[in-house]
């Protein structure tokens, strides 16, 4: 091949960089799974101690939800009017509620509902948001206009009102509540994705993809979307906490998951009548809602930093 010159230059350079192994650009050389993007993100995440604490709390709560039967000392449905509204004691760690049910057991079982409603509602909301955002960003023109105007309409309705409307339509079961909660986060995600896509689209690598005859679909899914994921992941993790809060709000209004299911929001809602005589009915589930919201927000913060390319080495 008549490319001696290039070759010579390359070899020269290589010899040179071998010689001085400290050249920092050569660090990216041998690559195992440890050099993968995912590992890097995890490593940076691990550096953020506060976020790791958040993650540990979430893992503990998930384990609690899974092994609720083993952990809970009592049946969460067992009514015992003789021991109603008892304060925390050795027998009932968090006390008992108005029907004499063990609050600790109810919170342990409630983790199942509260956590899953948070995750499912955010997941559905984020996925639909990605779908609409991608459609808007991909087609542009009137499709984009229509989607954005629908978003405007949805966002002009107060969140809680929207949830009430949707749960009126779907009813008040677990799934219906998840649906109601997911709807109002769709416009936010849609706009977030569209905005990110707009800036990613302007980058030259998208034009480069077009120049090598990439189909529009492939440009979208291979080149644009993966570069838009960071803010979405963060908004997703932040949303989980918010969904649990809103779900508590709905239960409080008597629209979400209802008695006797021990959803934390529903527990707060039921306990409010005894606020003066037995505040622990509200305090303990409230504490757990706060804990989950806090943990997810911490994890969200940590993820945002870990995914920020500027913090990459």
């Amino acid at each position: 091949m008549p490319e001696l010159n290039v070759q010579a230059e390359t070899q020269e350079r290589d010899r040179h960089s071998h010689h001085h192994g400290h050249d920092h650009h050569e660090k990216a050389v041998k690559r195992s799974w440890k050099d993968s993007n995912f590992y890097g993100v995890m490593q940076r995440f691990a550096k953020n101690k506060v976020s790791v604490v958040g993650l540990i709390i979430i893992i503990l709560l998930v384990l609690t939800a899974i092994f609720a039967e083993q952990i809970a000392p009592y049946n969460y449905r067992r009514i015992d009017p003789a021991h109603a509204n008892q304060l925390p004691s050795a027998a009932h760690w968090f006390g008992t509620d108005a029907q004499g049910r063990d609050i600790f057991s109810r919170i342990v079982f409630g983790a199942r509902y509260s956590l899953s409603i948070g995750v499912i509602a955010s997941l559905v909301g984020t996925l639909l948001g990605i779908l609409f955002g991608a459609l808007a960003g991909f087609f542009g023109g009137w499709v984009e206009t229509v989607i954005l105007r629908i978003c405007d309409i949805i966002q002009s309705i107060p969140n809680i009102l929207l949830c009430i409307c949707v749960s009126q339509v779907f009813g008040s079961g677990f799934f219906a509540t998840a649906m109601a909660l997911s709807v109002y986060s769709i416009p936010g995600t849609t706009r977030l994705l569209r905005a990110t896509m707009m800036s990613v689209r302007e980058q030259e690598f998208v034009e480069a993809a077009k120049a090598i005859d990439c189909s529009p679909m492939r440009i979208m899914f291979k080149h644009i979307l993966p570069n838009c994921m960071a803010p979405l992941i963060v908004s997703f993790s932040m949303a989980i906490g918010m969904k649990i809060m809103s779900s508590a709000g709905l239960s409080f209004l008597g629209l979400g998951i209802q008695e006797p299911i021990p959803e934390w929001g529903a527990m707060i809602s039921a306990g409010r009548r005894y606020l003066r005589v037995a505040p622990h009915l509200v305090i303990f589930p409230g504490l757990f809602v706060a804990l989950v919201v806090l943990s997810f927000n911490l994890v969200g913060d940590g993820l945002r930093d870990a995914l920020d390319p500027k913090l990459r080495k």
Partner: protein
Amino acid sequence: MENANQKSGRLLSVQNLSVQYEANNEVVKAVNGVSFDLNYGEALGLVGETGAGKTTIAKAILRILPDPPAKLTGGKILLDGENLLDVPADKMPEIRGQRISMVFQDPMTALNPVKRVGWQIAEGIRLHEHCSKAEANERAKEILKLVGISEDRFREYPHQFSGGMKQRVVIAIALACNPDLLIADEPTSALDVTIQAQVLEMMGELQKAKNSALILITHDFGVVAKSCDKVGVVYAGEIIEFGTIRQVFEEPKHPYTKGLFEAIPSMSLDVDRLSPIRGLPPDPTNLPSGCKFAPRCKYRTERCRQAVDEHDFGDGHRCRCCMYSEEHGEGGK
């Protein structure tokens, strides 16, 4: 301006300045023992590649390095004999506006978009000279005329100005208080050549008229040749060669300076192939011992790995290279 003309002699003397950035258990040695002198009325060009430490030197002189992560680890910065590093932090703003000012690279972001251009120029004057608003406005209009913008644009907003005009405004703001030293960090890199020519011409004229000193930071040797008297070539945080324009451009001594001149396509000579400098600038977190350029140098010897000498060729032309020291005498000549 008459009294400005009387000023002469040494204005700035930077001695053995060292700066490092410390972050995530890593130490980036950005500036390593930089020394140079600058007289009133002189223009000094600092040239070097991205990350060589030119901007850090400038910011260290102004003491606007963010601390942390930046740490001044040694040296002196003497302005008219007064060490700026000993000046208490609350006195620095006075020095910054009135004695030294700085022009940054990007004129698009250097101006406040919601304030009138005239107001922005007058602001500095009001703050530093403690004069009345009307007086400050009068002075601002004068300066605007000096940088070649007509007075009637005084009440316009930055978005009504083109790139070159904005950079003129930025320079006007920097000159508002008649500083003795103007530091310009790549002032024309964001501008087109014909506009660059206009701005450089104007800056040079003003600097000579006011007899102030100028430090021009750039990566463009051509710009230095056109507008500076002295030049310092910066590599890996060191000034590896320093001298007058004529000394450095006509008889470059350091292998790096020579290499750069060979790597730039010429406007008058025909060469078939350029001779690039091989390799890459060193990692500032892990600088080689001895001569920082040795790993890329054609003339390196074992000695270069241990130490580097500064050789003085007389008339202020100096160069950090072992090639010219006694025991190495015949090495590269």
